[in-house]
Every structure is written in structure tokens, then in C-alpha cells.
């Protein structure tokens, strides 16, 4: 799940992607993904500084960091 999130965000780096769009991307990539697991993975990635989450009035957005890109390159 974390890798699917990072993959989706890396395609639009350094732009921010709405978490709703990100969730639909993950759903398309992974069969049987649940929203709870998605939220959990996103929070874990934020703790690891691989993703930055920006709260918005309308929607939250996410962006991959250099650490996230480095993880994908491993």
C-alpha cells in the first residue's frame, strides 16, 4: 500500500495530489484495498517523512518528499 501511494505521488512530483485522487489511484492499482488501510499507510509515510500531508479547508493534499523518492529508487 505504501509503495502504491509513493508510486502515484512520484508521477506528479513535485506537485501535490488530493488525497481523494490518490485513494482512487491506489484502488486502481491494488485490488481489495480498504480506505482504513490507505489512511493508515498515509499516516505512516508522513511519520517517516516520505510524504507531506497538507490540510485544506476543502480537501487534504499529499506530496512525496526526497526521502520518499529515495525509497522508491531503492
Amino acid at each position, binding site marked *: 500500500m505504501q509503495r502504491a501511494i509513493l508510486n502515484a505521488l512520484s*508521477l506528479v512530483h513535485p506537485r501535490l495530489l488530493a488525497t481523494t485522487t490518490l485513494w482512487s489511484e491506489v484502488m486502481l492499482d491494488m485490488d481489495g484495498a480498504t480506505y482504513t488501510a490507505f489512511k493508515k499507510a498515509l499516516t505512516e509515510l508522513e511519520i517517516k517523512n516520505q510524504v507531506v500531508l497538507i490540510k485544506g479547508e476543502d480537501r487534504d493534499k499529499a506530496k512525496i518528499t526526497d526521502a520518499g523518492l529515495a525509497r522508491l529508487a531503492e
Partner: protein
Amino acid sequence: MKKPRADSKLDTLPESRVLELRDGLLGGWRYDDALSWLSTECAVSSSLSALSAFFKRHCAPVMKDRRQIAALKAETLVGEAGRTDWNAATLELVKQVSFEMMAGEHLDPKISEKFIKLILKADSQDAAREKIKAAAKTKIETGLEALFEEIKGNAKAEGLFKLLQQEVAKA
């Protein structure tokens, strides 16, 4: 005999129909709309899960590409515009909104408003800057004309005047 998968019917449609269906789904058709279009236009009965699988195979890659291209374009367009009077936060806002517009993402109304105001303000600032520049140019030209009248006939002074004129033109 094994029944063919419902989604395989969609892939065996003529290419033009596959593209029509793909474009329809990308353009916002609901699955119900797509099912009735398939039934009336292509005489094919399908299912929601078949459409979902079709979407994954045909529409998702297009959406990914569109987003990726939009992200690249947002960077290059703003870079090419060459504005140097915007701070980093403003440039970031312009890039993000450009990306969202080009990717066909839903735009936050407040962010859109901020963006439009910024563009309008930048336009009026450009116009004001041009006006000031034109006024300053007129003043300099008048001053130079007056100066030339004073030094007319003095070869050394006229030589220096030409150098001055060239420097003013460069500025």
C-alpha cells in the same frame, strides 16, 4: 464450455468503439450510461464489474499520463513565463493551480479565487510598470533634446553626447 468473461466482450469491440467507450468514461459517463450506450450502440450487454475492469485497463493509464504531463507542463510553463517578481510561495501556488487545471482535477474555489486575483493584480502591475517606463522615457528624451541644443557645435561635447545616448538606449 467455459462462459467467456464479460469484460472480454468489451475488449473485442472494434477499436473505434473501445476508444469511444474510453473517452466517454474519461469524460464523466456513469457506468449506467456506459451500459446503456453499449446495449443500444454496440448491441453488447455487459456488467458493472466488466466496466470497472475496462476502466482499469484503458482509462487509468490515460489518467496517469495526463497527470504526469500536467505536472511537467506546470513546471515548464511557469519557468518559461520568466516572472521574477513573484516570491517562492506565489510561484508554488501558480504551479499547483496550473497543474490541477491541466490535469482536470477539481479546483478548490478559494485557491482558484486567490489565483485569479493574483493574475489580475500581476496584469495591472505590468500595465502600471509600462506606463511609468513610457513616462520616464519621454522625460529622458526631452532632456536629451534640450541638452543637444545647448552643446550643438561643440564637437567634443557632441561626441560625448553620442556615448551618453548609447548608454541611455542600453538602459
